[in-house]
């Protein structure tokens, strides 16, 4: 279970990333954020976001039209 859950359903690029960044900012280092999105572009974008920022993408799952990501704040 993640420390925080962000509902980004119905949001399009770049809002899921921007909202996730905001949510990560208030998490302590080591805290986890779960993001639920419907934007298929979010899969590649969260990989890229984590690669650049150094946060850890712990999981990336797709279930029907729902995309769920768990990011650990390490940066």
């Amino acid at each position: 279970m993640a420390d925080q859950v962000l509902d980004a359903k119905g949001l399009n690029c770049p809002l899921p990333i921007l909202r996730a960044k905001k949510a990560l900012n208030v998490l302590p280092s080591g805290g986890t954020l779960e993001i639920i999105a419907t934007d298929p572009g979010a899969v590649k974008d969260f990989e890229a976001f984590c690669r650049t920022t150094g946060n850890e993408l712990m999981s990336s799952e797709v279930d029907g039209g729902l995309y769920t990501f768990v990011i650990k704040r390490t940066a």
Partner: protein
Amino acid sequence: MLDDQNAKSMTIIVTKSTLDWAYPPFILATTAAAMGLNVTMFFTFYGLGLLKKDMNLKVNPLGNAAMEMPMAGGHMAMPNIMAALPGATALTSAMMKNMIKKKGIASIEELRELAIEAEVKLIACQMTMDLFEYKPEDMIDGPIIGGAASWVDEAVRSDINLYI
């Protein structure tokens, strides 16, 4: 990975403020800022409209053969002769704003707010302000008013420089 030791930066020269072309600079600026880059946007000529308090952005397909709208399962382009009629700009702008809302895409007002919140540095071109007789009170609070040298000074130290 970026951290305090190897922070990267990006500048964007923003030259257009129609409803469509307002998106790329703000999307890239806010995303880059969220990914840890220091971002500077330099608004010049028709891009300056994006710093006005009241933006009321518009789009018209006149002379833009690539612009088509999804309609009845297909796509439709508006013939130039129709796009030139009075009221066509209001119509196509309203259609585009409606689509933007329906698809969960941020408004330009929202993206601009997010850019300011993310401490994106905004520079309004002094020469364009003079040329088109814009007053500082027509503009939102926050932008620095500067010239080409202000952009060059940022660009020379930046990793990514874009012209949109």
